[in-house]
């Protein structure tokens, strides 16, 4: 099975991923995919004006003909890359009783969708897999070769990491790129504690990278529902402090849900303070739809909850 799913890609047609820092520092010319009036760059296309666009870029001649606002887009130089950073630890292989696919399958399809969106917009895109360190890395390019290369890497990937080391992995990744980049981290963010992934994000954000935290969640991990009542023996997916334990989910279901929500809110708040975009994707739905909705809402600054 290939994670390069045409249905997913079809849902992403016409969507773009804008870095926030590109808008902020547009004067300095920093951008991922942008159009700026007056630039010396080659004209690429027209784009329908939407509220929030710079009105200075409206092509008034076209407005005269069409009576509608259009913006002119130019192919500018690319000085910021998209890194799709994918968690390849064992915990990502989990698939709950109600989920359509495992978190890993969902993440791979989402990652390739992001790569596709970036390439479609002629942006440079790279892929990194991490677990207890960086496992695979494909340096950013703007050619379509990246997509097939990424798909091949993900399709053939088997060796999940035994544990997740966010800080170490992110530090390695930061060393791989000197440029300010947009990094979309796709993970379940299960670390040895709640502090670790958030701290790693904060450290990476300090390098001036723009970060997207895309959390892949299995419904069972969130609700602990869908299993017949009775005691279960649970084995840890990752190697660490956790040991096997026996538990009756029903006995702790409500408290678990409460704690889950609390931890997630705290995580989101902490990332929000660093202006790190946080989005939750549930494996219960189609990855193409979820990603498309996310990109659409992100571009419109809508809610990031999926």
């Amino acid at each position: 099975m290939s994670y390069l799913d045409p249905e997913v890609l079809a849902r992403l047609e016409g969507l773009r991923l804008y870095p926030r820092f590109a808008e902020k520092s547009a004067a300095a010319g920093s951008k991922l995919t942008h159009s700026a009036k007056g630039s010396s760059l080659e004209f690429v296309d027209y784009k329908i004006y939407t509220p929030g666009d710079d009105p200075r870029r409206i092509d008034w001649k076209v407005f005269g003909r069409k009576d509608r606002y259009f913006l002119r887009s130019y192919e500018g130089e690319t000085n910021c890359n998209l890194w799709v950073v994918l968690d390849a630890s064992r915990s990502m292989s989990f698939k709950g009783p109600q989920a359509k696919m495992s978190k890993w399958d969902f993440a791979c399809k989402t990652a390739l969708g992001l790569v596709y969106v970036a390439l479609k917009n002629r942006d440079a895109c790279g892929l990194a897999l991490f677990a207890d360190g960086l496992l695979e890395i494909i340096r950013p390019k703007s050619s379509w070769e990246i997509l097939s290369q990424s798909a091949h890497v993900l399709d053939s990937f088997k060796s999940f990491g035994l544990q997740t080391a966010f800080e170490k992995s992110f530090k390695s990744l930061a060393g791989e790129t000197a440029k300010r980049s947009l990094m979309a981290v796709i993970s379940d963010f299960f670390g040895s504690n709640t502090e670790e992934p958030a701290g790693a994000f904060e450290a990476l954000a300090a390098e001036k990278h723009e970060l997207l935290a895309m959390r892949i969640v299995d419904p069972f991990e969130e609700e602990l529902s869908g299993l017949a009542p009775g005691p279960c023996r649970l084995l840890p997916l990752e190697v660490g402090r956790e040991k096997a334990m026996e538990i009756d989910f029903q006995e702790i279901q409500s408290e678990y849900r409460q704690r889950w929500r609390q931890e997630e809110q705290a995580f989101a708040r902490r990332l929000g303070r660093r202006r790190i975009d946080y989005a939750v994707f549930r494996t219960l739905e189609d990855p193409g739809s979820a990603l498309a909705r996310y990109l659409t809402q992100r571009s419109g600054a809508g809610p990031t909850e999926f």
Partner: protein
Amino acid sequence: MLSFFSPLYVTAGIAAAGFVVFIHYYSRRAARREFAFSNLRLLREILYAKLPKKRLADALLAFLRAAAVLMIFLFLAKPLLRGVAGRDESRRGRGKDVFWFVVDVSYSMGFKDAGGITALERVRQAAGLTAEVLKRTYRNCRIGLLSFSDAVEGNLILAPTHDIVLLRQSLDRLAVLPKQTGQAAWVEWLAAGKRDGPHEIGGVFVFTDMAKHGFNDEQKNSPPSQLNRDGPPIIFIAAGSGSGKNRRLAAVYDENKGEAEIRIDCFGDDRGKSPVALRIEEAEKGSVLAAMRVNDCQASTVPLERFLPGAPAKERALLLKLEQDRLPIDDTRPLAIARPVRGGVLIIDGEPGRRADEGESFYVREALKSMRYAGRWSWIVEEEANRIFNEPSRSAGASGPNSVPEALRSGAAAAQQIWLLNAHKPAPAFVSFLRNFIQDRRHKLIVSLGPGSDLKNLGELLTVLFGQAQEAGEGRLAIKGLRQKDEKWLGNFSATIFNETDWRKIKVNKYFPAVNLPDSSETLLAFEVPGKEEIPLLIKLNSYQAQIFLLTTTIDAGWTNLPFKGAFPVIIRGLLEAVVSEPLAREAQVGGYWTAPAQTLGYSSVSLISPSGRKLSPTYPSHSPLGRGQLGPTTPRESVGGEGDSGFICLGPLEEPGFYKFSWGGLPVSGLREELPQILAAYLPDNAPESDLTRAVGRDLKVLLGAGAKWTIIPMSEVFKNPKKASMFLAAKEISRPVLLGVFLLLAAESLVVLLKPGNKGTRH
């Protein structure tokens, strides 16, 4: 019995509660599903936070469930003295507010334990404590005191009283008596004496050292077992040294060898360790015959020959005693033992059939098949007997306990009865032997005459003349003195059965008329043919000192059809029972009664002659299965109980040790039965199983008191250490309802705990 003190019941209750706890915890750990999960960290944090509460709830649940099970057991068990009216003050005086203290004052109660305290002193303490407990529990109860050894000690009885001080004084006055223990005595006293009645007694506390059980077979089937069925609970307070040591003498008879052995059984902790001094005395004279030391008493069997060398001319009773015994044994009762009279019947068949199913001996064998001592017969054909007497060194092929060569060679010592079946030509040596044989008054000779009988020689031997064989015909058998309306007996046949039998169709085709019969002869069985004189068929002769029975016809089908009629086995058995002494004595218990099926004895007028010559007539003993509660002697006719095959005759009590003999009434054949079964009365039955004294007590009590009776054995130290505990257990307070309420409360609490258990609150399914 579902009692608090039943170890089995307590064990079962604890086991059930334990099982509940086991299931509780086992089921919690039986996680059959297993899978890998990604977010164990959060689960662990939650679980650890809940763990103390969860463990507490689990333990509480297990406790509640186990307690509920135990309470159910308690509810079913109920206290020992439940239902005693003392609980209800308003009904005072009308209920079971009387308790009896029954104290063993037999010799063994004087045995001092390691602390130097006698068992009786311990009993005083225990009884005092028990009285306090009872008084505390039932304020208005009365307590009576009864002491016993081998019988109830009449001068040591305290009527039920409220006065505890008086009771204590009476307890202090108790003293050990040099007597044996007989538990049955007080049971009979309480049951038969009807003092306060068995149904009015709240409980009987028996303070004894359990030295031995002391019940015999007759007592086990006694009326108290019936009367006590709904009677008071009996609580045995084991106030002895606790070791349960005991020794017992028993006599063992080897029926094949015809010898007796003495066995010493030891029980308890000291088995086999301490040597025992055994002394044997002659019962009548009191002279000491032997004294020996038995080291390994567990396996001691001493042949009687060792003390009675040679064949005793007459049986004599011996007293066996255990002396210098360190153990708390009061079983010093002597055991009477004597050599049984050897018996045996030699049948000499003068005209054996050519096939196995013909000839006189065949019919005799068939008739004797069901006789219990038929195995003690020997058969020999006349020719073989002649050869043996002519050639004494020759060994005949016969075998068995009374083999012919042995019997013949040893002469009068072995075979005491000889039956000549149609002897054709006995050898002179054989006739000479027979002449000597009938010199002894103990010997019997039966002669049946047939077509080839040597009438001359036999006639000389019997001093009788025989006429020519004459023909008779179809007629009726008659027994002298038997009339149609007389309800008397002939063997197994009542008069009714006798008259219903088709005697008239019995044919005697030929017979030899015996003439010149001596005056002492007596016709026992006659053949009546209409129109003719009575033809004597079975004649009893007194010749020399012996008794001779003469059958004037043969059992051969050619001379009579008697063998094919139902009356034939009866006649044969009656004849043989008359001449055969019971080869082995039957054992009975001294103090007990001899019961036997009426069919075996056949006479209502039977009586027993004791070793000292006293005549014992049939009686209803107070605890006889026939007595149905009646006391005292009855008429012979009434002494036959039951109907048909279940009739019994009861004789006794056998108060003396030694051999008892039957004595028969005035019927014509009664004189033939003077030496029928002898009864050896001994103190302890040799075959009473007794592996453990306490268990034996329990077993015997169960039999004695009946299956529905309530009784228990309490180690004194266990209960009376804590009078409150004893009061609770013995109390007649109705604890059933509180216990049942407790069960429901526990179950309700269990449900509450389950509901409030961590994790169950707010669970969404």
